[in-house]
């Protein structure tokens, strides 16, 4: 088992991440040029949106065709280009400063995903929802992972952010029955969108303060209960506000949340949360989790630490809610019910606590799972808990609990064949 894994790994050894991304770019190009032809030839009804995941479950007879498609369209171009460019990128990459390195990779990732997604509007939609899930999961991780409390408020924060940013945008840039004609020229909508999102995030953070003050004054499991109540209170409050549509919902959000915008916000959220959790100041959050009285005795203002983590979570969830509202173009109070919170919690515990890569992985896997299970509709909520239970049995801390994913074997190495130390688990 171990030997086979090592052999498998040798295939990838020494090919830098940048090369894989270039490979991805190549694959996306190939698909763009001949994807449709290949799909028809294989008897598929069109280019599979998400690696044929939903096709497979809907009609298992298509599995061979889908596999051939994946091989020809993705696996081959990616691998060939990655191999071919490995030496070249390795030389480039080792010369970069950390900052340039990160920047280059983020840009490449953006290009690959965007180029691939743009071929199909459904892809772009799912990708944006995925990015929003990533923001939600990572920011929730701050509270449930690094801080070790249990909050279920995420849907409520989303709701506040979604409604506040929608109101600002519709009032400002859309001719609307309730909010009247646009106050500003609609062409400026995109410029104002970041501010609307920020306002939404701040509004969510302010309501979070009302939850935080009573919850963090005393120790105990109050947070779970108070945040549960919070979700219901927000929902019924919105239902009773007629001017934003009450239970019927609120629409007409301007179309300002394209993939690039959502991508940038996601990158920003991850960057900020990574910065915080990797700073000594932010690590005090984990100290509060592991032993609060010891943290207090070591000069840590634990109440402040908790409030900061909780408000940061609220802010980013509010931003994610605002993005969601403008991606979908319609929201209603029940978009942000407890089921939404449960979804984000599932992503979090699947991916693992106190891990940024874990949150990203959890969100991606969950979204893919949802995609596979989409034909099953409601039964999805039977399968997903089972998957979660299985994960909890075999990896109680989630797939990447308390550690970050690293690929040391993908790092370019200056000298050939240095003995490889297996990644510790």
């Amino acid at each position, binding site marked *: 088992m171990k030997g086979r894994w090592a052999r498998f790994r040798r295939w990838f050894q020494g090919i830098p991440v940048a090369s894989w991304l270039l490979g991805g770019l190549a694959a996306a190009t190939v698909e763009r040029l001949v994807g449709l032809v290949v799909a028809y030839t294989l008897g598929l009804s069109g280019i599979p949106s998400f690696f044929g995941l939903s096709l497979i479950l809907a009609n298992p007879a298509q599995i061979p065709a889908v596999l051939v498609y994946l091989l020809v369209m993705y696996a081959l171009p990616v691998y060939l280009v990655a191999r071919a460019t490995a030496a070249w990128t390795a030389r480039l990459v080792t010369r970069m400063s950390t900052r340039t390195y990160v920047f280059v990779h983020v840009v490449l990732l953006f290009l690959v995903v965007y180029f691939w997604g743009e071929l199909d509007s459904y892809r772009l939609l799912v990708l944006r929802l995925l990015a929003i899930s990533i923001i939600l999961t990572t920011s929730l991780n701050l509270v449930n992972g690094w801080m070790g409390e249990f909050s279920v408020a995420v849907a409520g924060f989303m709701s506040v952010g979604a409604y506040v940013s929608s109101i600002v945008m519709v009032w400002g840039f859309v001719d609307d029955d309730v909010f009247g004609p646009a106050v500003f020229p609609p062409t400026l909508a995109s410029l104002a969108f970041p501010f609307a999102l920020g306002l939404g995030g701040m509004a969510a953070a302010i309501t979070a303060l009302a939850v935080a003050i009573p919850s963090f004054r005393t120790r105990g499991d109050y947070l779970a209960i108070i945040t549960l109540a919070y979700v219901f209170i927000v929902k019924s409050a919105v239902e009773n506000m007629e001017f934003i549509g009450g239970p019927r919902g609120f629409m007409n959000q301007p179309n300002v949340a394209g993939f690039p915008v959502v991508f940038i916000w996601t990158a920003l959220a991850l960057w900020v949360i990574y910065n915080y959790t990797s*700073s000594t100041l932010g690590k005090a959050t984990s100290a509060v*989790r592991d*032993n609060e009285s010891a943290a207090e005795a070591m000069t840590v203002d634990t109440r402040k630490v908790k409030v900061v983590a909780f408000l940061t979570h609220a802010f980013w969830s509010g931003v994610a809610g605002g993005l969601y509202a403008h991606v979908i173009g319609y929201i209603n109070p029940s978009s942000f019910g407890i089921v939404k919170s449960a979804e984000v919690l599932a992503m979090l515990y699947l991916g693992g606590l106190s891990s940024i890569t874990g949150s990203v992985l959890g969100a991606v896997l969950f979204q893919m799972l949802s995609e596979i299970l989409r034909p099953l509709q409601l039964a999805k909520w039977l399968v997903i808990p089972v998957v979660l239970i299985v994960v909890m049995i075999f990896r109680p801390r989630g797939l990447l609990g308390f550690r970050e994913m690293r690929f040391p074997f993908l790092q370019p190495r200056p000298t050939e064949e240095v003995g490889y130390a297996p990644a510790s688990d």
Partner: protein
Amino acid sequence: MPLLQIEGLTHYFGGLRAVHRFHTRIEPGEIRGLIGPNGAGKTTIFNLTTGVYRPSEGRIVFEGRDITGKRPHEISRLGIARTFQNLRLWVNLTALDNIKIAFYAQIRYGLAGAFFGLRGRRHEEERIEAEARRLMRLLDIEQYADVVVSALPYGIQRKVEIARALATRPKLLLLDEPTAGMSPAEMMDTMEVIRKLHDELNLTIWLIEHRMKFVMSLCQHIQVLDFGEIIAEGPPDAIRNHPRVIKAYLGEMVEA
């Protein structure tokens, strides 16, 4: 001026009087001992001093400032650090992180720096790391820096806890049974460490200990507690032969 002065300290847990009219006066540079049988109230006195509980009665004055009723993180910022009777390390973090986090109050980059990684931050992080490693070297545990503390041997964990306390830059260090659960060899080692901290860092140390040999050889002045009250105090020799002490310990001490 005494470094720490406590007067008339009394504390009740519900109906239980855990500490009764305790007083002390610790001068800078001293190594002070607090002993007494199980349940005598020793840890409670440390908890009161560090702000974990607010005393029912009494006054705690540190460097001339009344700190009674302040919160623990405020008191620790003023210069009182402690270790715990039962280790309270941050078990999911590495030894180095355990120590670095104790620099919390000295971090200068603030929330903005933490979130946005502004310019001063890297510099500050490097400074903290260097100081944390220096403390680890002082206690001879530098090789464990990157190990998650729950995976470390018990004796090393005790040292990490001391290093963590030192990171807060204390003037007064409270050690609650620093040798609990240690072998005699480890105990001797700990004794050396405490001497070294006292001599090299010029620390004032107040320690609770059950092992007589340990207390007697380290401390110049010892207070003996029983049922929350001081039953004897003085230099080691006076304590050793004090009839009330012998009685309180029911001969426990004779063999030591």
